[in-house]
């Protein structure tokens, strides 16, 4: 009894300390007054919003060295890999996108806040900003934009989140969302059942969106409004055509509609298996249903919000920039970057992987079509790309070609940039083969690469116990997570 009380007290202390830590600004790009992050500040502002923002900016004298800054960005990259995404091998395109961001930043006085854009290989329309000022934009997004002005609008919106210091407010939210992560793991596990392949892929797609919503910044309405309005200022000041803001928001509206339709027409039904029940002692059906229900609810909200955001942008432009120059859209220069010698074949390979994914999603003969498409994606310079490798792993696994699947899994891991799912699968394999030393090495690597993810702790405890090592440190970390289900699993692992 006394032990239980002590445990609870310890738990409360740790959660309290995490809460306090989470609400503080983060070191990387700090230096703004905390009021900026609240959201909806643009609502009552007279005149241009950027003027109010610049007045509130408190320049941080202790800026990071470039090495420290890169280390901070690397942490963000680790975070997206934790969210089962990767960075694309498109250095020239990424450099161009960063140049567009630089021209937006140059419209600000001084050199206030740095940020870096990474291109991810995903086909979905998505862009997000993480804690240390990294902006991630998918190849699918770049493909669906029509000109540099739309790219500038999108980047300006994401960069506005950085400028407005929105990330600090979300830190704690991210820390408390591990439950969603379990929903995703479960959905992925259940997808390995004997269901039809296309159905499995659809379930995985929805599971990925659930994770995205859970793990990546989901700003509140006020924050989105502020970012839109500040983005308009940045776009106009950088001599881009600000109408690209509404054009870009129309694309957001379409994307949300697309996801809504997909989720609505592919209801996720989960069935517990004996193995899942013993491993995760929670009602997974309820958890998964809640996760998907929450996704549907968020998509409904996003769809309505997308229309309201367009109206708000139009009104602001009319009010503050009625007589602005309306330059021609920079279409040719934008498209030319996809045709560059180094970029074109790589983009083509990624698009081939997208088509493979597409075939898996929507085609009865998907597996047959996907295999050669993905093979094409793996040729040439993309041979060791973790995104394409993991897709091929999925295809080979579905085809029951275990050896070929294993080759792809190993090669994905060897890239050094694989998503966390790759590591999870390898750990699982080692544990099944009772190769605890190898499992330990991988788990330790995951601990470093992915910023000490809490969900690896049950396996870590189990492996350390098998190797006769101390587990108390990991048990304490489990308690610190404040996640009741995780604590249960850690307890189970320590007793096993």
């Amino acid at each position, binding site marked *: 009894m006394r032990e239980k009380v002590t445990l609870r007290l310890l738990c409360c202390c740790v959660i309290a300390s995490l809460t306090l830590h989470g609400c503080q600004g983060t070191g990387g790009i700090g230096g703004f007054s905390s009021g900026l992050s609240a959201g909806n500040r643009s609502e009552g502002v007279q005149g241009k919003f950027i003027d109010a923002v610049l007045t509130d900016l408190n320049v941080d004298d202790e800026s990071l060295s470039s090495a420290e800054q890169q280390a901070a960005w690397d942490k963000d990259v680790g975070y997206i890999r934790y969210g089962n995404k990767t960075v694309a091998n498109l250095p020239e395109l990424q450099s161009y996108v960063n140049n567009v961001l630089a021209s937006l930043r140059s419209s600000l006085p001084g050199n206030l806040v740095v940020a870096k854009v990474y291109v991810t290989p995903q086909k979905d329309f998505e862009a997000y900003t993480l804690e240390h000022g990294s902006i991630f934009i998918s190849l699918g997004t770049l493909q669906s934009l029509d000109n540099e002005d739309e790219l500038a609008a999108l980047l300006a919106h994401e960069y506005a989140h950085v400028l407005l210091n929105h990330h600090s407010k979300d830190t704690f939210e991210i820390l408390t969302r591990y439950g969603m992560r379990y929903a995703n793991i479960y959905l992925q596990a259940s997808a390995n059942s004997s269901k039809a392949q296309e159905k499995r892929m659809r379930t995985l797609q929805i599971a990925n969106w659930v994770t995205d919503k859970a793990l990546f910044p989901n700003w509140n309405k006020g924050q989105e409004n502020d970012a839109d309005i500040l983005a308009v200022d940045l776009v106009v000041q950088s001599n881009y055509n600000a109408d690209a803001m509404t054009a870009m928001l129309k694309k957001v509206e379409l*994307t949300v509609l697309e996801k809504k339709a997909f989720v609505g027409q592919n209801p996720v039904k989960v069935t517990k298996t004996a193995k899942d029940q013993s491993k995760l002692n929670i009602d997974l059906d309820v958890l998964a249903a809640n996760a998907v229900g929450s996704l549907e609810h968020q998509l409904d909200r996003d769809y309505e919000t997308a229309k309201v955001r367009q109206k708000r942008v139009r009104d602001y432009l009319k009010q503050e920039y009625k007589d602005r120059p309306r*330059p021609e859209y920079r279409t040719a220069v934008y498209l030319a970057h996809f045709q560059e010698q180094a970029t074109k074949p790589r983009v083509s390979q990624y698009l081939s992987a997208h088509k493979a994914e597409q075939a898996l999603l929507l085609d009865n003969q998907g597996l047959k079509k996907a295999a050669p498409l993905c093979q094409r994606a793996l040729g040439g310079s993309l041979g060791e790309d973790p995104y394409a490798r993991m897709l091929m792993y999925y295809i080979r696994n579905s085809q029951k070609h275990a050896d070929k699947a294993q080759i792809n899994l190993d090669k994905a891991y060897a890239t050094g940039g694989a998503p966390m799912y790759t590591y999870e699968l390898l750990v699982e394999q080692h544990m099944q083969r009772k190769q605890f030393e190898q499992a330990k090495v991988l788990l330790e690597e995951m601990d470093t690469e992915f910023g000490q993810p809490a969900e690896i702790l049950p396996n870590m405890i189990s492996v350390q116990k098998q190797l006769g090592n101390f587990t108390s440190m990991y048990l304490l970390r489990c308690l610190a997570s404040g996640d009741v289900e995780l604590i249960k699993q850690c307890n189970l692992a320590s007793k096993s």
Partner: protein
Amino acid sequence: MFGKQLYIAFTVLVGFLFVTQSLQADSGLGRIVSFDDEEVEVRINGEIDYWPVDRLGQLPIAILEKDSSNFVRIDSADNVAVWVSLSYVTTDHQAALKKNCQSQQIARSEDKQQFGVRGIGESCEKK
């Protein structure tokens, strides 16, 4: 005899009108199918103005020309050539994309071929 000539002339005239109307309506640039606001940003003689939507005419409105800075030219209700900002309207092209996005998942197995090629992430792309 005169009746036959009249019939031929009438048929030719109807055919001509039909073709020109179709060409105008389907110039490849599409039509405006809805307004996104109560008033619309327009450009006349290089000047920006804001017009109530009823001044533009009945929907759908054929797009006659497109420029590179987000404006399309139409003939307004009182037959004035006016440039309309695309930020304020939805074109049938955009509406079709929305419809595709909505309908792709309703597709049954027999029409999968038709919808299957434009799935999630691709159906709404422009290129």
